[in-house]
């Protein structure tokens, strides 16, 4: 009797555990099924490298390079913000902050991570947009820079807490060994702790990037939405996520535009998948290097 019960439980939990795999496969199938038809109309090369995105014209053009570049620009800009902020605050938390400061700062950073992206977007629209507009005398403050700023702030908690984890995985014994041969704090940090944590920090940065490139609501709200080749951080851009979110509602189901948006989603999915795989590989090496269990 009990053995049947046990089997049932096991079966239920196994189903639950494998359900995420089922979802993942389902999503991949849908992305391929709905995305691939666009390549009957344009070649994959023209789709990815085409410079004009006019999906609703009577002679539509499906070149997503402006969207890809929009994503890349905004993400690169965000990196310039979230890496110094995130890694810097991780170093501060780990090296310099006392117990009391940590007890206050860590929860604050975690709260920052849990703020819904629409709130960040709102903040960008209401505060950052007029600020950028006035500062640079622009017709609009909705631009790539704005997106980068907000995404950078949004990715900072991710980078910070992952980088801090990486630093805290560095065994205390390495620090002791370094001090014991006469190194000071700074030398220990830069020559032992940071190299030891280096690949862990790299993982943190990649996952921060992955978060930035996949973020939708904020970029939709603050980047201005112009699907043109970006020339300046002070001009509007339309990253891939924003294009999907903004256009999906208007794209007739089963039409070319609809398929093109799915193809964009497919590309995004593949990009973030690659990011995450790289991050996983690096962090595995990191754990092996530090002699932690793989």
């Amino acid at each position, binding site marked *: 009797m009990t053995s049947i019960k046990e089997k049932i439980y096991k079966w239920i939990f196994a189903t639950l555990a494998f359900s995420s795999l089922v979802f993942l496969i389902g999503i991949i199938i849908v992305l391929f099924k709905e995305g691939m038809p666009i390549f009957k109309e344009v070649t994959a090369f023209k789709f990815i490298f085409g410079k004009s995105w006019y999906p609703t014209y009577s002679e539509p053009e499906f070149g997503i390079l402006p969207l890809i570049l929009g994503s890349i620009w905004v993400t690169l800009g965000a990196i310039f913000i979230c890496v110094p902020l995130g890694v810097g605050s991780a170093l501060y938390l780990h090296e310099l902050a*006392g*117990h009391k400061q940590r007890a206050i700062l860590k929860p604050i950073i975690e709260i920052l991570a849990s703020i819904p992206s629409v709130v960040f977007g709102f903040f960008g629209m209401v505060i950052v947009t007029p600020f950028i507009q006035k500062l640079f005398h622009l017709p609009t403050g909705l631009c790539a820079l704005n997106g980068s700023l907000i995404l950078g702030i949004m990715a900072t908690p991710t980078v910070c807490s992952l980088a801090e984890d990486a630093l805290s995985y560095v*065994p205390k*014994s*390495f*620090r*002791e*060994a*370094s*001090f*014991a*041969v*006469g*190194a*000071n704090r700074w*030398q220990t940090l830069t*020559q*032992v702790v940071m*190299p*030891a944590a280096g690949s862990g920090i790299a993982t943190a940065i990649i996952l921060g990037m992955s978060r930035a490139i996949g973020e939708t609501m904020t970029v939709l709200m603050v980047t201005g939405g112009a699907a043109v080749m970006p020339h300046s951080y002070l001009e509007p851009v339309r990253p891939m996520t924003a294009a999907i979110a903004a256009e999906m509602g208007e794209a007739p189901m089963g039409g070319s535009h609809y398929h093109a948006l799915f193809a964009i989603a497919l590309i995004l999915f593949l990009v973030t998948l690659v990011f995450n795989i790289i991050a996983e590989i690096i962090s595995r090496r990191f754990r092996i*290097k*530090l*002699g932690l269990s793989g």
Partner: protein
Amino acid sequence: MHNRIKIKADSINFFYNKVQALKNINIDILEKQVTAIIGPSGCGKSTFIRLLNRMDELVPHTSITGKIYIDDVDIFHTSADPVEIRKRVGMVFQKPNPFPKSIFENVSYGLKINGIKDKSFIEEKVEMSLKKAALWSEVKDRLHESALKLSGGQQQRLCIARCLAVQTEAILFDEPCASLDPISTAKIEELILELKKEYTIVIVTHNMQQAARSSDYTAFFLLGELIEFGKTQDIFTKPNDSKTEAYITGRFG
């Protein structure tokens, strides 16, 4: 032969967060001798040995009274630089802790952080230190491989070599063989006897035979107090204190 005093602990009291871990410790550690510190777990052996090169500073919220002199210099004096002290007095830890760097980089680390750039000098010094640590013949063909590929015993000798490259006067060992097999342990003990010719050595150990075999002087700690200190031979054959006798005959601890 009469050795002079290298390290002198004078009325040391030490507190972790107001909890007293050492009570009025007085010891004279003689130059180029091996001084063993024995006692049951938690009696303050590590706490004491870590004071001798100011490694205690890595632990927050501690306080200390009393003085420690190295060559008559008060190491807790405000003008004393802990970094300078650690260049003279090195430390080898309970668990081998090589950096996740190459064998060569591990040994040269101390030189590099001290601003030495001369490559041939560094190479010589690395070779010499590895030789002194009785590791050279085992690693000379793979100096640029990761130190983490070495066995535990080799790693511990690498850590000793890392000290020897920088530290010139004294080496503190905190249970250096606690995680090693008997053969590696024997090698380290042999090495300690060899190093004694040039260095003042303090070794914390749990292993009574190890203390008896490799030390000249022995200090017995119990609950933060120094119960007895004297020539190893005397401590092991005719201890003055009944608690010492109980401990070395294995009746507690």
